[in-house]
């Protein structure tokens, strides 16, 4: 099978111009599995593999595509729960089950090969390995279809979670930071944005004014939007919407980061179906066209990012995206940035200047009307904070908004273009979608 590293699909440089396949690739199907808090270790119809197959089937059914038509499978084959997640991300040393659950594959990991075998996808000719997260996979799928490596491509993002301390197992559970870790992760974990973004967030408040708890309206709105997202964890589990009092009295995870600033790890899988614009015309769903995709992995000066760096990186990401899509900030109707930690979202909002928000304006913007029925329906998906740590709500909401099928979340403003991402300021990617191919 093709290794992802062998295929030069990334758009990760400045000055690449308008994407050569702009409007020639479309998303025609999407599927969400149920969103559980964790796998219970018993229900074989709720494993990560079973949920991934279900998500694929939903995406195919939505588009009216059969298994024999699938010729591309792009599936993230790593742990969202982290390689050092311990029991939260690895089933072993517990005994495995009967095939196809006789290894970690299907339980805590899913890849294209496992899906091809267990879904009977006999005509797949493009199924790379060593794949990144959904932020980059959507770009890879779009590029692969545009380049003709495949014509009808499933992209799958499995998010697993078992019992145990999420990302706090393995070396992170050790009482000692051994070797190089004494310099890089002396607190046991430095990989999450919980730590990395705290410092620049506080720099942000000092530079532009405001305080951490000014994020409350944004976080509360994410929860509201999440309750309008029928498949999400919050909606399917009756999670109470939170109030300002709930927010400002909540426990600090890492001061000033509060528990409601953090997303909730879940067990779920999402699939998107990409095809050519020509093929999309004959499928069941109204196509949503890909207008551009970009990626980046900016070099850090140290283990600690600064506000200056983050503003430079996010400005660069926005510039690349607008250039590749041939659009400007005023052209973007739906804006679904990442919110895995609420403290980073303002950096994206200001960089992309959605609805005219400039550097230092985000907290004031949050205090206005950002509801889905208002004039500035910011993050209409509810993001991770409103649906669970799926990292996919931003994409599927964007698709539904452009189709006009977002139901109670459907915005009342124009919905012809959408920007969506799962990304950190330094690493990830964006995708621009359009209701029309040009």
């Amino acid at each position, binding site marked *: 099978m093709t290794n992802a590293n062998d295929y030069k699909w990334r758009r990760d440089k400045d000055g690449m111009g308008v994407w050569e396949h702009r409007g020639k690739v479309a998303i025609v199907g999407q599927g969400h599995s149920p969103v559980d*808090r*964790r796998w*219970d270790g018993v229900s074989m119809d709720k494993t990560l593999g079973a949920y991934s197959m279900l998500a694929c089937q939903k995406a195919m059914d939505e588009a009216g595509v059969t298994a024999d038509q699938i010729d591309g499978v792009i599936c993230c084959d790593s742990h969202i729960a982290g390689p050092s997640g311990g029991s939260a991300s690895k089933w072993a040393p517990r005994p495995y089950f009967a095939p196809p659950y006789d290894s970690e594959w299907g339980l805590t990991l899913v890849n294209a090969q496992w899906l091809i075998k267990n879904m009977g996808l006999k005509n797949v000719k493009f199924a790379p390995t060593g794949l990144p997260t959904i932020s980059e996979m959507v770009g890879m799928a779009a590029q692969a279809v545009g380049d003709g490596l495949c014509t009808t491509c499933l992209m799958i993002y499995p998010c697993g979670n078992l*019992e145990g*301390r999420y990302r706090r197992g393995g070396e992170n559970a050790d009482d000692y930071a051994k070797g190089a870790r004494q310099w890089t992760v002396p607190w046991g974990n430095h990989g999450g944005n919980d730590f990395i973004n705290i410092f620049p967030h506080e720099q942000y408040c000092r530079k532009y*004014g*405001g*305080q951490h*708890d*000014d994020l*409350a309206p944004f976080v509360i709105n994410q929860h509201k939007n999440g309750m309008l997202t029928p498949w999400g964890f919050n909606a399917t*589990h009756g999670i*109470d919407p*939170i*109030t*300002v*009092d*709930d927010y*400002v*009295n*909540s*426990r*600090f995870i890492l001061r000033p980061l509060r*528990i409601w600033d953090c997303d909730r790890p879940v067990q779920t899988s999402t699939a998107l179906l990409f095809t050519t614009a020509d093929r999309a015309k004959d499928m069941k769903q109204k196509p949503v066209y890909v207008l551009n995709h970009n990626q980046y992995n900016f070099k850090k000066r140290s283990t600690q990012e600064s506000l200056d760096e983050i503003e430079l990186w996010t400005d660069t990401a926005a510039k690349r995206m607008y250039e590749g899509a041939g659009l400007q900030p005023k052209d973007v109707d739906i804006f679904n940035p990442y919110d895995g930690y609420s403290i980073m979202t303002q950096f994206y909002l200001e960089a992309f200047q959605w609805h005219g928000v400039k550097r230092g304006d985000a*907290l*004031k913007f949050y*205090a*206005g009307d950002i509801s889905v029925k208002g004039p500035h329906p910011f993050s209409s998906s509810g993001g991770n904070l409103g649906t669970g740590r799926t990292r996919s709500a931003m994409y599927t909401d964007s698709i539904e908004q452009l189709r006009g099928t977002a139901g109670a979340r459907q915005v009342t403003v124009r919905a012809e273009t959408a920007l969506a991402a799962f990304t950190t300021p330094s690493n990830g990617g964006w995708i621009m979608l359009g209701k029309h191919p040009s």
Partner: protein
Amino acid sequence: MEVGLHRAAPILTIPLPLKGREANIKGDTSLAKLISFDIDGTLETGDPPGRITMVMVRQVQALGYIIGSCSDRTVSHQKRMWQQHGIEVAFTVLKHRLDEVKAQYAAEHYVHIGDTNMDKYHAELHGFTYYFPDNSIDHLWEPI
């Protein structure tokens, strides 16, 4: 637009005037024991469900313990949970607010039962005896 939010007063459920409870308000010399229950991973109503059933909660309350919940679940959720099960509790607080329980109730012994290291951390920080919800807590259900 002006930014900044007013910080609300600390949340602590005002104890209902239940029979026998007033005797345990600080200042009285008659001391009971107090148990604080985490919810997720501890009570059967949690996510994941824990080992402690609502029947067990009623039993320990009948033994004379002052009981309540201490969780990251919102206070409104905690109150609703207890109401749905018809159990009147003395307190419903957020996980980092155990100190307020101790300030409000004089007890011979303060116990917090929860399944995470955060339960242990906050319990020990505020002078509660911490128990993981396994068979190490069975002795609490013996008559006091």
